[in-house]
């Protein structure tokens, strides 16, 4: 899909560079992805690197900030170590300060995550499980994981429903 829309996305970025740069000067903060794009954020964001969107590869996510914790999940067996970027850090980086995230997966599963969920010590967008990148079969490449064991508030079906795997898109809505 990214491959399909690759040239368009590039065009958007160029346009953003020429049009948005003088206005915000923040486009420079978000470099262009060098690896495969794993996440595309659209909607009410202040920082973009493509046409109305921020496209990110795994390295870019890691650069924003890397967090690791261990927890069990109801979908896996035994304790798992997850590494990824905190949702808060990502939203900060994208200049999101409120509203609702509409997160979508490869299988078009969509769930709404309020921006208020994005707190320090809260959910991360994981790209490593037990130190290994996750394949699609392993619910990869991105999986929003809450530290279920660290905070019992997260051991609820609502949070479980927000724990979207095979994540590839986020739209920020007000």
């Amino acid at each position, binding site marked *: 899909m990214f491959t399909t829309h690759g040239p368009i996305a590039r065009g958007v970025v160029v346009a953003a560079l020429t049009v948005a740069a003088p206005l915000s000067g923040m486009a420079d903060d978000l470099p262009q992805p060098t690896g495969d794009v794993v996440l595309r954020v659209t909607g009410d964001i202040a920082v973009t690197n493509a046409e109305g969107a921020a496209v990110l590869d795994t390295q870019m996510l890691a650069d924003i900030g890397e967090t690791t914790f261990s927890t069990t999940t*109801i979908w896996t*067996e035994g304790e798992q170590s997850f590494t990824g970027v905190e949702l808060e850090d990502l939203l900060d980086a994208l200049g999101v300060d409120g509203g609702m995230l509409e997160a979508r997966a490869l299988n078009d599963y969509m769930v709404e995550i309020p921006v208020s969920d994005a707190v320090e010590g809260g959910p991360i967008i994981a790209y490593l499980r037990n130190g290994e990148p996750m394949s699609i079969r392993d619910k990869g490449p991105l999986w929003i994981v809450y530290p279920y064991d660290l905070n019992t508030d997260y051991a609820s*079906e609502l949070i*479980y*429903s927000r724990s979207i795997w095979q994540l590839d898109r986020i739209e920020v809505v007000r």
Partner: protein
Amino acid sequence: MPFTRRHRYLRTLAIAALAIAGVVVSVALGGEVLRKLRLLETAASDNIQWTLSQVEVEYLDLAIAIEQFQLGRTDDLDTVRREFDIFYSRIRTLSEGDLYAGLREQPAFARQLSVIRDFLDTSVPLIDGADDALARELPVLFEDMLDTRTTVRELAATGLGYFAQQADLRREEIADTLFYLAILTIVVLTGLFAASVVLFRLNRSNEARARTIEAASRRMETIVNTSLDAIVVSNRTGRIIAFNDAAEIIFGYKREQVIGQLMSEIIVPPHLRNAHEAGMERFRTTGEKRVIGQGRIKLEAMRSDGSVFPAEMAIESAEGSDGEIFVGYLRDISHRVKAETDLVEARDKAVAGEKAKSEFLAVMSHEMRTPLNGLLGTLALLKGTKLSAKQAQYVDNLEVSGGLLLTHINDVLDVTKYEAGKLDVDFVPTDLSALVRSVVDNQRDLASASENTIEWSWVGKPLPPVMTDPQRLRQVLINLVGNAVKFTRGGRIRIEIGAVPQGGGADVTITVSDTGIGIAPEDIDRLFEDFETGDRSYGRARNGTGLGLGIARRLTRALGGTIGAESELGEGSTFWIDLPLDYASDPVETGTKTKLPARPAQAQSILVIEDNEINRTVLREMLIADGHRVVEAEDGLQGVHLAQSAAFDLILMDISMPVLDGVAATELIRSTPGPCQTARIVAVTAHVMPGEVSRFTEAGMNGVLSKPIDRARLRQLLVAQETTTEPALSETGLVDPGRLAEFRSEIGDDLFAKLRQTFVDDGDALVAMLSAGGEGPTQVADRCHKMAGAAAIFGAGPLREALKTTESACREGVSEGRLADLIATLVPLWADTRKAVLSDTGAPVAL
């Protein structure tokens, strides 16, 4: 009260337990409900159903992707691969997720899952392989996939069915829980309602109690602070915790000075501190209370200036908020103690004064009767000489006046005797008719002189002889009739004797009525008081000692009767005496004492021992006139010598004499062998105080002739000597029980017991001394003499004789061997006598 308190405690406990149980169950059940509600809430999120339905959706997505490729609509195998991976991921979630652990235990689901996994695992190498191989083998893969189509559908259906069932179970559980919760809520609400009712009532009663306690406390505070007694409260360690206003005044401390101080150091005087501390210590260790709760006790307390004062104190213990406390109520009784002391002193003085008065009267009677004796005796002698008619009249006048004086003295003596409880009454068979007649005869001349008629009669039948003391009764009647005669002029005096039979005798009433001046009713009661002479006219007319009716009353009482009077002014008076009298079993002795007895036929030789010359002369002259031979002695010693030199038929012995008194002289005569050792000895004395007569007889005298001497009695004495045999000393045994009983009744049981003890102690001491030896003969004689006197008092004749013998032997100079013999006799005799005296119980003895 403890039961109520316990009851209340238990009730509170029960409510508390109920409340705690309610809370625990509520929390537990509430928690359960909340947990289930949350489960219910999360079940509504539908995640599981979505996941399960997604299995089929993603299976179909894969199928569509493969079909699209096979139909040539796309040559992109990536979509196939992605859809495969997604499907794979979904199945893996079902295979591995904890959420589906329960579901996986369902055999159908496990089998279906296994089939699908087999397909996926088989297909993975192809999917992961090269594009051309995948493109070539895709139709085969698709065929395999379609084979699992039914299984995928069944898997989803099985899962959904399972979770639906789980949801149902959970709903049922929740329903049950809610039901229990509802019941519990009702129970808890009911409980809460009950509790609030109880609490409301408790609160109300607590408020009421608090108000009561506050009021009581205020009242108590007022009481404590207005108490006139000091109130000092201390705790268990003896430290003062409260000190009221009165305590401040009594002890002279300010409250703040003493609070917290040791009570023993503040108010207990130093000499009582050890005892106080010991008491407190004893109480602390053993709980024994000797002072506490024992009511009022008297002790001493100390003021702030160190002065000690007598106090009356009561201590109670009570339970305070900090353990046991002691509440002491203390009163300064200095004034009371002083008043008591003063009262005792005053009483002692009064008693001493009374005694002095009595002694004075006794002495005066003696001192007055002795010269009167001389006077009357001399008059009697004068009467026997030749006198002119005029002289005879003067002598008569003198005799009347002397007799009157003697009566007054006897009145005074009677009062003294009565007050000493020693008024002798001698009950003998008495003919009342003769008695009253003699009184009438006695008074007839006086009555005539006042132009009064006097008469007497029985009301009803005359009584047979009765038992009474005729001398005393006569004295009373003469007094009453004498009064009647004196206060009546030209009237009538009437004596009536009435009797009402009563048991073995009769209640006799003798009334003396006159038609005289009478007495005001309000004065009647006072008539019988001593020194009371009625109204002034009575006093003038009587011109007496004022003792007449007082003595009459005393004598009547001594006779066991009562006396009274009724009168109106100007209407005359009626005096009456009531006497309960027994009939006499013996006939009345004949012969009157008022008539001069015949002179004895035989002249006797008489020794008169008397120091007063006049009295001696009177006696001598009277006796010589009757033809007797008389020898005189001027004192006791002289008398004893004479008695030992010659035999006499009779010795008249004065008592109070210089050198040797009558009693001692008698003892000497009796104890010394001589011509007069057994001669009759009669005391001649004005000593008429109680106890004296028995002392004389104990000394060995045979009778008493009281002064002043009159010829009649003297003759009677000498006649009696002729006709009666000499009364021998009673020697019924070692101790004369009659004498002992008499002595006991004379002095009373208490004094008797005391004297008897002294007697026994003296005897023991004497015997011990004699047995030990080593004393000089004079000392032994003195001791024996003293003991002999005591033995006489206790009627111990043989002992007395033995002591006398020993005394005489010692005085005459005795050999050692003789003395040893005497002592050998004395020792067992004393032991027996001692036993006999001590065995006397005061029970009546047959005489």
